[in-house]
């Protein structure tokens, strides 16, 4: 058993170790480290050991290193053999010899020049050659001595410091060759001194010569310079003369050179082209509006990766656009100067305005053509576009308004009013600016405030104008709550609001939201306390209308319009109709609601309910099964017959007319007849709104379900013959339209959902847990553990080595002591031996004597 194991072990050992194991086949030297378990894939390095071999190796190494050190521990002197290649066995002796010879030659050569500083080495000072410095600074250093030069002649040094005996020998040899006889040291030194003095003198004379020469040269130059200078002043004076009076031609050339290059601008477009462009622009805007209406862009436009150049450093730096203005022509004038002029003549714009107004009559069509231009400007850069475009436009609108006769008044206002206005800081300020003025004056003031504080004029103007929007809005609210409301002024201010909104969409939408939130909050409070709210004043209605004018109402979602829609829905569901005035307000809200969705054709349940209620209060109450009223209308009660006409005769005298918005703020019908007429008008408006709804929603899938209550109610209206003929006609036409909306009920089908793809199982890679490897949580931890482990191993190894060293040393010391003892023993033995022999001899001698 044991044998078999050993054999197997040997086989594995030989297999694993390979070559070195084969070198040493002595089986008695092999020590096998038995493994407890065979583990696949594990590398074993220490399964077989050669303890004898390795021990011998270790001892050899120690004797070579440690023992040597030990033996030389108290010795400070070291014999160092520096012979070239003495211990290098790779070099053949011949080669060694050659190299040695070459080395010696080299050394010889180097030695010769080691103290000869002046000869071929160039000394530098601050990177400049000292020799050069000498040459140039001769004059400056004239009074300094030769020692200052910092260079010593070889002879001098040799003589003074006398170190190099060889050198000395050499020179003496040279001299000896020259003169044939050697000189004493004293003589030599004297000679040296004399030599150096001679040199010094020579140099001084040389320097003086050079100085003289330069002086002479200077004088000569002066003489020549006089000749030269006769010419140069002349040319200078000519230059001076020319500068103040340049040649006209030159000037032209130069100016042309510096002038902006005229870029080829677009040629002036013809009427058709302009119309075409305008159409294209509108189409583009319309397409955009449609996209927003369908609400499909939400995901698309949020993440559109910008183009990134390959050279982009990704540091967010964008090269500024080329802002240089290009020369272009517009309307036959150079375009560049217009801005500058505009800025300069801001104050004087009133006069310009008058001029413009003079053109007003012809400006009608001019505006048409100007419109698109200005709007494309608006989009690209509001600031630049607004300036050139505003004056014309703004001046025209009052011009149009005063067509009836206010033109002269407007002119007068223009001359009376101051030209500049500071932007108001609060609404009160604006109110004080505007109150007490006529409509034209108010408009002018607002317009001038806008112009004086154009964002391009000063840094803070943007914020001021942004605020102005809010103040104007508030002012509009004030005007609407006045009694009677100044609707005409609002009508004109709306244009200003639109312009401001185009400039600052963000702040405009914010202030619009603020106004809406205010109103809703008020209403919510009322609902919470009383359970119902009162229809708010005309101001909110005006605000809602303005929302529709400033923002696109057809968007699927819009930050201002959607809340406004919810607000209107609240108005129609939570505010009961208590008076004729409320009916007018409610109808206005309905009208607005319908207008908001006129493009997007969206469905409004509240509107249908409200119209149902409005129509219901126009007939005598009776219970009928066809329809059910919902909030805020009640089937019976105080206000359930609000629109019922009390006198039959009034129906005959009624003329259809539109409703006045003023009635919404304070309606006081003088006579019963008037009230009845208003009632009929309200009914007419309700009916026509209903007609519009029918047309709008005719295509909805469940139109009949929506319209059936209205249908029933209209039948009742028809049955009640008190209505004037016109209304009855209207009813009838609505009923026929309802009937005409034939629709087929196609059963609903879900869209086919995409088949769910099979789940693919990608292999999950898991780190193999290896035995022996330190498992750590993360890489750093692992690394740290590895290092700790390594350190531990090394430490152990080092300790083992040290221990072995000590053992080795102890062994050596012991053997030394033994040796010494043995020697001593031997010596003692010898001594005893000699002594014994001596003693023996002496005794023998004594015995001999005794015998004698």
């Amino acid at each position: 058993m044991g044998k078999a194991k050993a054999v197997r072990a040997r086989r594995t050992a030989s297999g694993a170790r390979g070559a070195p194991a084969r070198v040493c086949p002595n089986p008695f030297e092999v020590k096998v480290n038995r493994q407890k378990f065979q583990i696949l894939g594990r590398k074993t390095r220490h399964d077989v050991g050669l303890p004898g071999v390795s021990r011998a190796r270790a001892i050899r190494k120690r004797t070579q290193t440690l023992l040597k050190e030990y033996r030389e521990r108290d010795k400070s002197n070291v014999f160092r053999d520096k012979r070239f290649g003495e211990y290098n066995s790779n070099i053949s002796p011949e080669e060694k010899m050659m190299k040695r010879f070459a080395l010696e030659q080299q050394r010889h050569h180097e030695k010769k020049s080691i103290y000869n500083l002046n000869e071929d080495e160039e000394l530098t000072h601050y990177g400049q050659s000292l020799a050069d410095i000498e040459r140039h600074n001769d004059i400056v250093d004239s009074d300094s001595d030769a020692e200052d030069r910092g260079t010593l002649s070889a002879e001098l040094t040799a003589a003074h410091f006398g170190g190099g005996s060889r050198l000395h020998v050499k020179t003496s040899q040279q001299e000896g060759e020259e003169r044939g006889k050697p000189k004493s040291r004293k003589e030599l030194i004297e000679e040296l001194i004399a030599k150096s003095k001679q040199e010094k003198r020579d140099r001084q004379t040389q320097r003086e010569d050079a100085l003289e020469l330069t002086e002479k040269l200077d004088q000569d130059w002066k003489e020549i310079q006089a000749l030269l200078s006769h010419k140069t002043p002349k040319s200078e004076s000519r230059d001076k003369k020319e500068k103040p009076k340049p040649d006209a031609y030159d000037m032209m050339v130069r100016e042309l050179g510096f002038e902006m290059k005229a870029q080829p601008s677009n040629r002036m477009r013809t009427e058709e082209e302009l119309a075409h462009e305008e159409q294209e622009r509108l189409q583009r805007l319309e397409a955009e509006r449609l996209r927003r209406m369908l609400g499909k862009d939400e995901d698309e436009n949020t993440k559109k990766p910008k183009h990134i150049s390959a050279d982009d450093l990704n540091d967010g730096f964008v090269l500024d656009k080329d802002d240089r203005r290009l020369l272009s022509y517009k309307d036959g004038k150079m375009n560049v100067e217009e801005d500058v002029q505009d800025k300069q003549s801001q104050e004087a714009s009133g006069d310009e305005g008058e001029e413009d107004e003079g053109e007003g009559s012809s400006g009608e069509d001019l505006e048409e053509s100007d419109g698109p231009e200005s709007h494309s400007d608006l989009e690209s850069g509001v600031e630049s576009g607004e300036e050139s475009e505003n004056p014309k436009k703004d001046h025209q609108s009052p011009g149009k308004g005063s067509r009836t006769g206010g033109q002269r008044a407007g002119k007068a206002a223009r001359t009376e009013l101051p030209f500049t206005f500071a932007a108001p800081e609060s609404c009160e300020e604006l109110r004080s600016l505007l109150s007490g003025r006529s409509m034209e004056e108010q408009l002018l003031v607002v317009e001038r405030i806008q112009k004086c504080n154009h964002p391009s004029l000063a840094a803070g103007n943007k914020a001021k104008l942004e605020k102005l929007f809010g103040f104007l809005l508030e002012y509009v609210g004030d005007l609407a709550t006045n009694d009677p409301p100044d609707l005409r002024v609002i009508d004109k201010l709306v244009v200003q609001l639109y312009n401001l909104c185009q400039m600052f969409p963000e702040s405009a939408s914010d202030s619009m939201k603020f106004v809406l939130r205010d109103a809703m909050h008020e209403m919510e409070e009322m609902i919470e306390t009383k359970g119902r709210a009162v229809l708010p004043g005309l101001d909110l209605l005006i605000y809602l209308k303005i929302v529709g004018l400033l923002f696109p109402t057809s968007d699927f979602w819009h930050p201002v319009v959607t809340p406004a829609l919810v607000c209107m829905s609240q108005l129609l569901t939570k505010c009961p109709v208590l008076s004729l005035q409320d009916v007018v307000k409610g109808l206005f809200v309905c009208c607005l609601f319908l207008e908001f969705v006129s493009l997007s054709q969206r469905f409004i349940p509240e509107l249908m309910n409200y119209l149902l209620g409005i129509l219901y209060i126009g007939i005598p109450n009776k219970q009928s099964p066809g329809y059910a009223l919902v909030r805020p209308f009640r089937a019976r009660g105080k206000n359930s017959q609000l629109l019922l006409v009390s006198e039959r005769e009034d129906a005959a005298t009624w003329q259809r007319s539109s409703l006045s918005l003023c009635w919404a703020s304070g309606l006081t019908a003088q006579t019963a007849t008037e009230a009845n007429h208003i009632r009929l008008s309200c009914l007419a408006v309700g009916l026509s709104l209903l007609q519009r709804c029918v047309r709008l929603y005719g295509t909805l899938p469940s139109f009949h379900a929506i319209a059936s209550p209205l249908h029933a109610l209209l039948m009742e209206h028809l049955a009640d013959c008190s209505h004037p003929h016109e209304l009855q006609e209207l009813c009838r036409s609505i009923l026929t339209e309802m009937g005409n909306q034939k629709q087929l009920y196609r059963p609903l089908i879900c869209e086919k959902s995409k088949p769910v793809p099979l789940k693919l199982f990608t292999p999950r890679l898991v780190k193999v847990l290896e035995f022996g490897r330190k498992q750590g949580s993360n890489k750093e931890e692992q690394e740290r553990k590895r290092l700790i482990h390594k350190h531990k191993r090394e430490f152990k190894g080092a300790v083992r080595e040290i221990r072995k060293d000590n053992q080795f040393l102890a062994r050596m010391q012991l053997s030394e002591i033994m040796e010494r003892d043995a020697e001593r023993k031997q010596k003692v033995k010898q001594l005893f031996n000699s002594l014994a022999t001596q003693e023996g001899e002496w005794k023998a001698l004594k015995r001999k004597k005794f015998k004698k």
Partner: protein
Amino acid sequence: VPDGGGMEREPGPAGTRRALGRLLEAVLGSRGEANAVFDILAVLQSEDQEEIQEAVRTCSRLFGAMLERGELFVGPLPPEGAAITGSRGAMRKYKVWMRHRYHSCCNRLGELLAHFSFQVKELALSTLMKFVQLEGMHPLEKPKWEGNYLFPRRLFKLVVGGLLSTEEDHSLLLSQFREYMEYDDIRYHTMQAATDVVAQVTNLHSEVSLTFWNNAFTLLSAVSLPHQERNLSNFYVSHIESSDKWKIAHLKEHRKVFQAMWLSFLKHKLPLSLYKKVLVIAHDSILPHLAQPTLMIDFLSSAYDLGGAVSLLALNGLFVLIHKHNLEYPDFYRKLYGLLEPSIFHVKYRARFFHLADLFLSSSHLPAYLVAAFAKRLARLALTAPPEALLMVLPFICNLLRRHPACRVLVHRPQASELDADPYDPVEEDPAKSRALESSLWELQALQHHYHPEVSKAASVINQALSVPEVSIAPLLELTAYELFEQDLKKKGPEPVPLEFIPAQGLLGRRDDLCAQHFRLS
């Protein structure tokens, strides 16, 4: 004579106070001065509320001391004249006489509960309650047997009768009284007394005022029984020894009395507003405490038949009965179906109704025709609903379809021919005959064109196959339009804000605009 318990002289600037103090002292000091009680009682009739308050305080002290000393006659009280002229001892005469004074004082205090000044009312109430406590400790009637439970029922009924005034709204005073109802015995006797008082008042008057009902409801709704059986020993009137044999110590008895009280209250014809109030709290604070909740069936089912908001409210109570007490209610779903009217989205109890409707329709064992009828009816009603309700009802309908796969034909019916009209009959009251299963939810298709983006999205869910997990409608139940508005305002849209590109020309817009057609500025 020992010193009067807790008697202190208060130096006061007011003459009456000093005078009353003196009188009090005299009466308590010696029996000879007993006639001064008349003077004290006379002040109770005063007009000045300050004086009345002083007198009430003095009476409280006087009779409090008397009760504690036992100077009041114990036993059935003989008439005053007979007792005085009788030949019994002077001490007995005195006690009888004093008891009569005490009696008249209590009556007067009961009257004062209707005083115009709230302070006086409050003081009178607290004094009466103090008397109740003292009288309970020192009963004025003889115990019939050992450990007989005695409570001043007469006096307490006086208090409750005063509280349930027919003329005046006593909600404030009742909220004060609520504190006493923490005590188990007071609560028990309140219930008893209230039952009596209600019966008495309704017997006396043919037409009972709304005020009385309101008062009664406030008092009744303030009674809240403990949910668990525990030792009911938190008594206002402390007894020397308490016994388990007393009725008052058992919750079962309390429940019986509670039930009797409510039933006696509900059997009368209540005003509509009160009806609603009762129904609002019915499921929560009445039904669980009744000894036999099934007795409420008549009330609730008649309320359910009433229609409108009352029906909606009765639903909750009925649900509790069906769910916990095994009530078999025929045509429950049919009636529920009948409750679905356009106004359902506009009433205050919308959230409650839909919460319950969700519960009722959550069973997976409902027949498909029924669920389909509900879904179709709700969809039809959604055509008139405001956006906040739509946001709730659209997921509701989708949940119905998810729960009942058989109803999915409402949104997905392949291989079917086009129809000329909607087969669904909205007028039919029986969901089984409404032919809803043959129809489709075209209404939701119409609502995909709703003006509010969220509603439109919610309605578009049916375009795809419905996802499996239900959408929880609980957070949507209470959604109001204002919250919706705020959500819309806060939502961040794409920058920059899109603007109208057609320039404004005036307030009413261009000539052909809708507003300009129907409105003018002046």
